[in-house]
């Protein structure tokens, strides 16, 4: 009889613990969900086959947006989720592909900056923008490119998980910052050369 009560007690405790874990996890997940989700369903596209698609092992390609002369893709590949860009007039032909190790997006990595940077001096440690573009999680509203002194060089709104600009300011960029709709900083990547 005592054994049966102990068993019921143990089972109840286990059940309560399991419910607590599920609730705790759900609470955390709902808090971070806008940063770990891309709601833009896009549309499935067929990729032009080549060296790049062969290396990637693309399972599925989604066109997220066409902005001006640029196309933005989300790929499901053998490397995991990848962000990709290409020319809008060559749909399905990938120009560059970024496949970070692990999931994307996440609260720790809500932005995949696909921007192109350049330097025209051999000795200077500065990079300037050639083109600004990238993919973000739902929770990112604005992407800002800032100077070393903290001033904002370029501020781009995120529209359907994509930010994009081909007209960019000259001069060095020190960091990329992701902001939510309230202006709170969610993520920052530094570009300042340290050696």
């Amino acid at each position, binding site marked *: 009889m005592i054994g049966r009560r102990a068993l019921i007690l143990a089972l109840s405790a286990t059940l309560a613990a399991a419910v607590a874990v599920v609730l705790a996890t759900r609470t955390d997940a709902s808090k971070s969900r806008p940063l770990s989700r891309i709601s833009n369903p896009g549309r499935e596209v067929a990729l032009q086959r080549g060296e790049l698609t062969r290396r990637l092992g693309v399972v599925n390609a989604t066109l997220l947006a066409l902005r001006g002369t640029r196309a933005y893709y989300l790929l499901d590949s053998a490397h995991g989720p990848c962000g990709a860009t290409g*020319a809008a007039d060559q749909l399905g032909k990938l120009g560059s592909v*970024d496949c970070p*190790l692990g999931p994307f997006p996440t609260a*720790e990595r809500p932005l995949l*900056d696909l921007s192109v940077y350049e330097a025209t001096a051999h000795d200077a440690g500065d990079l300037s923008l050639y083109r600004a573009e990238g993919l973000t999680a739902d929770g990112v509203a604005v992407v800002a490119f800032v100077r070393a002194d903290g001033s904002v060089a370029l501020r781009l709104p995120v529209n359907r998980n994509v930010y994009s600009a081909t007209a960019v300011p000259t001069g060095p960029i020190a960091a990329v910052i992701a902001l939510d709709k309230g202006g709170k900083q969610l993520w920052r990547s530094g570009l300042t050369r340290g050696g």
Partner: protein
Amino acid sequence: MLVVMTRLALLTLALTCTTVIVALTRPAAAAAGWCWPNCSSYGMLGPYTSTYNGCWYSSGEVCSGWSYWSLNGLAKTCYPGCDAWGQTGGEVLYGFENSQRIRGKITIHPGSWYIHPSDVGMGGYLRAQVKHWSGSASQVNVAAAG
């Protein structure tokens, strides 16, 4: 007997998955072109690394010879470690260069990265490159195809 067979099946599955993961994370050899440090292993790219062949930057950069490159690929690992945000300690610039400029994309994350010259507004006779930009040295494999 059934338990033993199930365990063997699970072991086989685990080994198969491990083999697939290892195969996928291995550097992919370029079809025809240039690799650094070679086409089957990783090297450490730090502030003083160089291929000593006249790259845009005299140190901290590895670059190919001049050619009509069509693709540059970078595999970057977590080694020696990634932080809680999944970032490595080293930031790299990867892309292409000519005699006027060096141009490419920046990453601090481990993963696989591919870039065509046309996507960075370049073409013709180029060098494929990867530059240590900031932070600690990065473990990378670079493979460019012509």
